[in-house]
């Protein structure tokens, strides 16, 4: 079984995000970029399946500008077998990504597709679900455990209020949650091997998909600055303020 993992290039989780002066988005120039942490978990899970003899090949797919090759290289250095970059400078929104991925999947015919449950830049949490719908495949989102069984998959999902275990038929789409695994670091020899692994570069037209955005961003703003706290003299005053000033009770 082939496993396809989607990997997105995002601003590193350690970077303090700055909004651009013209409020059209956030500053990405000269900012450290990394693989979306949920996608690292996806790569790790795919590698573990291959190491357990349950998968034959791990393919890392990224979509976006040419620099996304670095993100694919990271996946290759962790151990993925080959990479595919759908290269475009157009801003990609979840539906476009899902359509492009579907086109890649139609060609590659993997038995399992793993995505992060969301990307830490726009926190959309849509791509995996849209992709499963477009493919007409079963989906196991927010996975914290994944087991291959004789007749498909068993996925433990993190849901409000606890864990839910579902059985899925393959092929299937999985999205990862934080507790699924702890991703490995790339070792030095594997970093050196990664550059010899192939990365196919495809244009969206070649996949017959129009990736143009459907949603328009009006403006991006910093969250409001935190206000200083206030001391209250009595419980009475506290309740009064909660009711009449903050209006939360």
């Amino acid at each position, binding site marked *: 079984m082939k496993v396809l993992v989607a990997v997105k290039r995002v601003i590193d989780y350690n970077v303090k995000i700055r909004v651009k002066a013209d409020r059209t988005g956030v500053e990405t120039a000269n900012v450290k970029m990394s693989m979306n942490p949920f996608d690292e978990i996806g790569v790790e899970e795919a590698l573990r399946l291959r190491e357990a003899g349950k998968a034959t090949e791990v393919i890392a797919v990224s979509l976006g500008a040419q620099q996304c090759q*670095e993100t694919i*290289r*990271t996946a290759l*250095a962790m151990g993925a077998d080959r990479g595919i970059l759908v290269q475009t400078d157009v801003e990609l929104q979840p539906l476009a990504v899902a359509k492009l991925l579907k086109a890649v999947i139609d060609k590659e015919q993997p038995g399992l597709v793993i995505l992060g449950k969301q990307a830490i830049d726009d926190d959309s949490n849509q791509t995996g679900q849209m992709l499963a719908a477009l493919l007409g495949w079963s989906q196991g989102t927010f996975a914290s455990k994944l087991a291959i069984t004789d007749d498909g998959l068993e996925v433990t999902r993190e849901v409000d209020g606890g864990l839910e275990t579902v059985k899925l038929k393959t092929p299937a789409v999985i999205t990862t949650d934080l507790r699924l695994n702890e991703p490995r*670091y*790339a*070792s*030095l*020899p594997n*970093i*050196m091997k*990664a*550059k010899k692994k192939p990365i196919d570069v495809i244009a969206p037209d070649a996949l017959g998909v129009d990736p143009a955005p459907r949603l328009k961003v009006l403006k991006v703003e910093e969250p409001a600055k935190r206000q200083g706290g206030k001391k209250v003299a009595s419980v009475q005053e506290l309740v009064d303020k909660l009711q009449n000033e903050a209006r939360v009770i």
Partner: protein
Amino acid sequence: MRFTLSEDQEAIRRTAGDFAAAEFLPYAAQWDEQGIFPVDALRKAADLGFAGIYVREEQGGSGLGRLDAALIFEELAAACPSTAAYLSIQNMVAWMVDRFGNDEQRGRFLKRLTSMESFASYCLTEPGSGSDAASLKTKAVRDGDHYVLNGTKAFISGGGASDLYAVMVRTGGEGPKGISCVLVEKGSPGLSFGKRERKLGWNSQPTAMVIFEDCRVPVANRLGEEGEGFKFAMSGLDGGRLNIGACSLGGARACLEAARNHLMHRRQFGQALAEFQALQFRFADMATELEAARLMVHRGAASLDAGAAEASMHCAMAKRFATDAGFRICNEALQLHGGYGYLKDFPVERYLRDLRVHQILEGTNEIMRLIIARRLLRP
């Protein structure tokens, strides 16, 4: 001349940085305070190939160069200079076995060293022989297919904890030509250790005397020929010096970042410290010195990788400059923190204590000047 890292080097630096931030940094203060030798964290580093960075790939190493190593040590030391420096010694010994050992020895030792199943120490210094290393007295007398060792090594990093000791011993007459290098396994009869030294810094690794009393070591454990030991020891040190310089870069960088943060947030006289020009200038000088030191370390590494005739001198220059600059930067960062810099709740004092010894070991900075001057003032 190119001043940019290759894509691979970027990836290597990033891996080392991510690893250090997750596996060293959160624990470094505790390792320092409680004198913990972080065996598991070091083995995790070895899993990534950090214990045999420039050991050849077919021997279980990572097959990389000295510049790659400098990048790695800077990143690791930005989290914990003391632990990074121990790893440098492990690399030095592994490289000596790969470079100067025979196939049988490589087969017997290298895998253990690059995986850090076995920890290694480098034993040159003696109580009576420090800077004048070639005057060492530990004697190895041949007895059949064994050497019988008598003498004491001092200040040995990893002493008592390590499993394998690369020991410079006297098998012949006086001076450097009478010195050989033998590998001594822990548990050899006649091998014992002094008490664990109490130190200003480098507390995440033990330092102890290593004592030989009629200690029997197979002749098969000698690297190269009799009389070649001092040459091996010195060529090991060329790379060791770069690594120590790189460890100073990492520690200094961490202090520079801490100082930047403090200057931006601490307010006095109604403004952030960063707004006082006197402090801005000092901060600018710290950053400039760090950059200069980094260039020298990378230059030394490139020189050693290229096998340049001036390599030993470049390594000595880089070690002298980077370890002096590194300590100064930590000290300035401490000053810019005011009283907070002196507290253990802030990280600067740990880096300062750890980096101080880099000016002393792997050859003191006075000896670095001696090496440089000898080279330049040859008649």
